[in-house]
């Protein structure tokens, strides 16, 4: 119970782990956008190469990434089926209301590649960044939003406090379950409504205790001079190192290549592929 990790952080010593969380956040975001803006196979090949390099650098076993994939298997199959059967275009096969078209197969394949790249890129970020660093990065990145009165520091503080208290409250919930079970409560009923009802004697005390803890913590924070984010310094401030600048350069290069490919590829495709060949399915 005490070892619960959020966002499935994978402990390892690698360049990707050491990268500034801001680089990783910006990188992941740009990467995801790039996957959505351009919709052709050349861009995806470049994207896949970049991702493969990052995975290799991160020293996270491939199995870990694929675990994340399992969760979205259902959505993936669903989109593929939809795209294959319900995209209008040149019909290859037809029966009843279903028709399989060239465009459909093309869309399905692209969609699958896109989703796979998307999920893996997101999980790479959470696998190589501790929740702590992630909140730090978010706070720093969104700092300009303070101008429009968004309490960025406060939100980041809340996130990190929530992370700190999750294991404590889990333990507490465990204790309450035991205490209530000792007094005859049942948490294992098969009926859904009864099961929901049985949660009440767990949730009410848990909430009361959470509020008490929150009030204690607020007092303790105040006693230690907490007065919001103004004028605060940090034990481990986020500082860009040369590896971070290099990563940004790589990122800019990547975006440039993708944009270039996205714009020119239509012409290249027209050049390369003879009409009606099955290869043209992909383009």
């Amino acid at each position, binding site marked *: 119970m005490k070892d619960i990790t959020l966002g499935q952080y994978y402990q390892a010593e690698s360049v990707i782990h050491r990268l500034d969380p801001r680089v990783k956040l910006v990188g992941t975001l740009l990467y995801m956008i790039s996957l959505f803006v351009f919709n052709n196979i050349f861009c995806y090949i470049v994207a896949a190469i970049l991702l493969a390099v990052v995975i290799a650098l991160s020293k996270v076993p491939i199995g870990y990434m694929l675990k994340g994939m399992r969760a979205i298997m259902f959505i993936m199959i669903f989109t593929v089926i939809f795209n294959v059967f319900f995209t209008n275009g040149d019909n290859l096969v037809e029966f009843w209301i279903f028709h399989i078209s060239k465009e459909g197969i093309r869309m399905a394949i692209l969609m699958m590649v896109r989703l796979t790249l998307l999920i893996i890129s997101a999980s790479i970020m959470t696998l190589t960044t501790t929740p702590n660093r992630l909140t730090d990065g978010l706070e720093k990145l969104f700092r300009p939003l303070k101008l429009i009165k968004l309490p960025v520091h406060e939100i980041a503080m809340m996130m990190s406090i929530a992370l700190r208290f999750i294991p*404590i409250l889990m333990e507490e919930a465990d204790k309450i379950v035991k205490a209530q079970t000792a007094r005859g409560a049942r948490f294992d009923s098969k009926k859904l409504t009864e099961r929901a009802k049985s949660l009440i004697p767990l949730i009410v005390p848990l909430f009361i205790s959470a509020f008490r803890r929150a009030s204690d*913590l607020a*007092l303790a924070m105040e006693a230690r001079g907490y007065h919001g984010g103004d004028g*605060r*310094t*940090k034990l481990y401030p986020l500082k860009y190192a040369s590896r971070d600048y290099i990563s940004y350069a790589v990122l800019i290069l990547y975006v440039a290549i993708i944009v270039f490919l996205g714009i020119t590829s239509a012409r290249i495709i027209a050049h390369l592929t003879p009409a009606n060949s099955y290869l043209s399915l992909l383009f």
Partner: protein
Amino acid sequence: MKIIKAEEVTFEYIRRDEDGNVEGINRAVDKVSLDVKEGDFICVLGSNGSGKSTFAKHLNSILLPTEGTVWIDGMDSKDEDKLLQIRQTAGMVFQNPDNQIIGQVVDEDVAFGPENMGVPTEQIKERVEESLKTVGMYDFRKKSPNHLSGGQKQRVSIAGVLAMHPKCIVLDEPTAMLDPLGRKEVIRALRALNEVEGITIILITHYMEETVYADRIFVMNKGKIVMDGSPREIFKRVEELEEYKLEVPKITLLAHELRKRGLRIPDCVLTVKELTDALKKC
């Protein structure tokens, strides 16, 4: 120079019914006057509801007195401009170790106070290292607080206050939730702080054993200070203490009973060694 000076401090909780009408007033602290010399080890004793915790919260401006004044190192606790300075001068440690640790890693938690004060990063690192070493928790600096025992967590809390370089530390029943071993750890750390670093300690407690080494003890009952003196002076008055629902250390009680039965034992015995020495002379 008096580090803490309280004059006629009164604090009232106003009880309200559901409509917000005043139902009654609870006087938690009633005209308390005291002063504390810099470098002293002070204990405030009292049973539950004696007002000792409420009073403690006045010492770093968490609560402001309804009447009277508290001065912390010469600063009036009501002075809002000096709030941060007051909280830095008089650090506070609370009862529940889980609810006062903010960081997810020990060193980050210790850094929380200096971070709030805007201390430059390099100095924060020094302070964290130094305070963790002082309480003997340096080896745990990279651990999650959730993996520590109660006594260790409480020592981390003390380090967190220490990193703010306070002149005085107020501890509100820091050992109430600990096992005997953890209690010993914490008290040992406090004594070291007081003797080696010369930091004024104000320990609020209801364990009499912890007060044996104090320079001065205040006993509170129903919001008032009812006894004031050195441990020997206080522990002599066994019957009076029992009246305030406080228990004298067992060794003192034993000596007291023996004395009552006619053995020639000195007036007030605080440690086992003193009693054995006295008994040998009989």
